[in-house]
């Protein structure tokens, strides 16, 4: 039996888990056990999927036995399975963190019994979006994860969360409507919504229609990925959600948008027709995002802005449409999911220990909790791209690809990328200086918790402030981030191969539509070495 035929389980298992946890809604202990067990099983399965395509290759699974292009097809290749593994590992860590938080708080201020089923449905939606080889199924995957995210965003129904939730829901629904309109127009133009079939049929359309469909899809995905002119909803809505929810949103949801953009650019509309606008947008995303981050004093809001800013790097890699650029973008997505999520989890811990997430009220945390300082410092430096870490390697790959491309715009983006990296360093260094380095007495409005007499190690208060499960899961994610650095060699090799396969397209199309399907030549004019 082919290992890839297990791919539907990556979607089915979390949904099954959601059903089970919904049945166990009155037994919180059993609920936790079931959701963690099923998510671990999903992660294991996805690791098997990744192992099966580790050395290249693409496998397609026809759902319900319908032969493509009529039926829905799930496609496992290096990029999708890598995304699946990273996203599931991150969501498992966040689930453990949230469980720890729920146990520590006695499940009192939020209906946490709803949390587990919703969370698993979110994971199922993300997996579906990564695996989908059908444009409408991709839309359904988006809707599954978005609907789950609406519930998670407004968990508890407090004033600020409802306010932020309204913005989030309206923006998301509008982007979904745009996506649906784009699907309808694609179907009207080609008569198919199977992505491999579309790759062939879209190339037969005239240039005007093609550009229209291309732009519509990119705008719809751009809203979800928070690319610059469409990114204003993100820093407004993410920071108010509970810490684990913000963490998983920051890690996964925007990356699903980036993933969809990558597929659109490489599979559906190859060539460089929109590369120049994408590069300009990438530059603006990087610079405007990081300037927004510098103005913030709340760590969660600051991180939301860095999230927007660093989406620019991925769009930059994508816009180069060269193997080197795309490979760096693939690596950067994997790196950024891990790092951004761990930073948000650490911020949750900072909020618990220091009583606030505003740098005006935080001080002296390095002395109070050296472990917390370490947990913040490593991913923060990683985000800023300080040499030994994976953030540096990803950025270096992007810069090399940009210089290899050699156009003036590419050079502008390389300069913008370096500048953004330095400004990111400035932003996180300010958080570090204020929240961790300075003395508590120096803060303008220090939180009373910080001035309290330090409790001895292992004392009752220390345990209550930082539960072991929460610290453990955060530590796990930080270690995963460091592991991305240690295993960057093999990862970059996989990213390189997947980028080459995505730009070549023939493996994908022939895996879905059968061997011997003629693949139209990609209209690459430069950069496609």
């Amino acid at each position: 039996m082919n290992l890839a035929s297990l791919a539907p389980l990556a979607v089915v298992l979390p949904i099954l888990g959601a059903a089970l946890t919904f049945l166990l809604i009155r037994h919180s202990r059993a609920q936790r056990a079931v959701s963690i067990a099923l998510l671990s099983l999903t992660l294991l399965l996805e690791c098997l999927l990744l192992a099966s395509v580790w050395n290249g290759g693409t496998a397609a699974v026809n759902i319900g036995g319908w032969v493509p292009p009529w039926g829905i097809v799930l496609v496992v290749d290096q990029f999708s399975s890598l995304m699946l593994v990273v996203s599931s590992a991150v969501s498992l860590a966040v689930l453990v963190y949230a469980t720890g938080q729920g146990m520590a708080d006695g499940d009192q201020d939020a209906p946490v019994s709803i949390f587990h089923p919703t969370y698993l449905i979110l994971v199922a939606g993300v997996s579906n979006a990564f695996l989908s080889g059908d444009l409408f199924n991709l839309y359904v995957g988006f809707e599954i994860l978005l609907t789950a995210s609406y519930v998670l965003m407004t968990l508890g129904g407090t004033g600020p969360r409802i306010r932020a939730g309204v913005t989030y829901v309206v923006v998301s629904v509008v982007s979904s409507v745009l996506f649906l309109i784009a699907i309808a127009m694609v179907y009207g133009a080609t008569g198919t919504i199977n992505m491999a079939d579309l790759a062939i049929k879209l190339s037969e359309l005239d240039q005007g229609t093609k550009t229209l469909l291309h732009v519509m899809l990119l705008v719809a995905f751009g809203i979800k990925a928070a690319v610059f002119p469409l990114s204003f909803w993100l820093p407004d809505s993410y920071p108010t959600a509970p810490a684990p929810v913000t963490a998983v949103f920051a890690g996964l949801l925007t990356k699903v948008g980036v993933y969809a953009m990558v597929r659109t650019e490489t599979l559906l509309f190859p060539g460089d027709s929109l590369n120049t606008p994408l590069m300009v947008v990438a530059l603006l995303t990087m610079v405007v995002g990081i300037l927004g981050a510098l103005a913030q004093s709340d760590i969660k809001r600051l991180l939301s802005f860095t999230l927007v800013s660093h989406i620019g790097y991925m769009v930059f890699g994508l816009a180069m449409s060269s193997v080197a650029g795309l490979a760096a973008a693939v690596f950067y997505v994997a790196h950024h999911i891990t790092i951004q999520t761990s930073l948000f989890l650490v911020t949750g811990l900072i909020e618990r220990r220091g009583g606030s997430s505003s740098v005006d009220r935080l001080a002296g945390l390095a002395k109070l909790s050296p472990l917390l300082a370490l947990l913040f410092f490593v991913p923060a430096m990683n985000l800023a791209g300080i040499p030994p870490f994976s953030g540096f390697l990803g950025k270096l790959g992007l810069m090399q690809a940009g210089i290899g491309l050699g156009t003036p715009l590419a050079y502008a983006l390389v300069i913008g990328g370096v500048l953004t990296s330095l400004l990111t360093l400035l932003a996180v260094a300010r958080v570090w200086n204020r929240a961790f380095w300075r003395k508590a007495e120096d803060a303008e409005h220090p939180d009373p918790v910080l001035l309290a007499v330090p409790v001895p190690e292992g004392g009752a208060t220390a345990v209550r402030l930082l539960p072991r499960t929460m610290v453990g899961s955060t530590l796990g994610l930080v270690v995963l981030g460091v592991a991305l650095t240690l295993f960057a060699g093999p990862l970059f090799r996989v990213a390189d191969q997947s980028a080459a396969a995505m730009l070549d397209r023939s493996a994908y199309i022939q895996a879905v539509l059968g061997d011997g399907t003629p693949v139209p030549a990609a209209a690459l004019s430069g950069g496609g070495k």
Partner: protein
Amino acid sequence: MTVNLTLLTVMGALYACGIYLILERSLTRVLLGLMLLANATNLLILATGGYAGMAPFFSKDTDPASYSDPLPQALILTSIVISFAVTAFMLGIIYRTWLLARQDDIQDDIEDRRVAETPSFDAEDDAVIPVETSEFPLPMRGSDSSAAPESTATVEAGGRTLLAEHAAQEEKPGSGNSAPVTDTGVNTEKGTDTDGGAK
């Protein structure tokens, strides 16, 4: 491919009304706008299926060319279910907003307003460094805001209202102002901006 003009016109009207409504600040209208947009999109998908034909797969001897395309209808069905879920959720949110804030409008983000109104002044970088750093501080302006509060006392002089300090300057010989100054009714009211730089 022929399309139904009535459907197209209705679709256009729905889109126009929907876009108008989602630009409102009232949440109920936004919801209505989203519903109209979703339904307009359903009509668009229906239109992509081409002309209305026979029921597909009904009998074996129908000419396949006369079938209507079943796929757009399946897509619409899925899309209706999704917009139903979203509408239900939005109604819940709107009700909750009403319970919490007693209004149907989109609320401002307080933290965002605060950041927007924060001046480019940074408490650490731009802190006022005392000019006089000796251990015997002189009660002079700028040395310490608490030692010598800036005088805002005014005097009435020759029909004008002057700051007391400026009036004292004009009193000096050679200032070119020989008009007699009578200190009448010195306003001793203190300004409130003496600690302006210490925020």
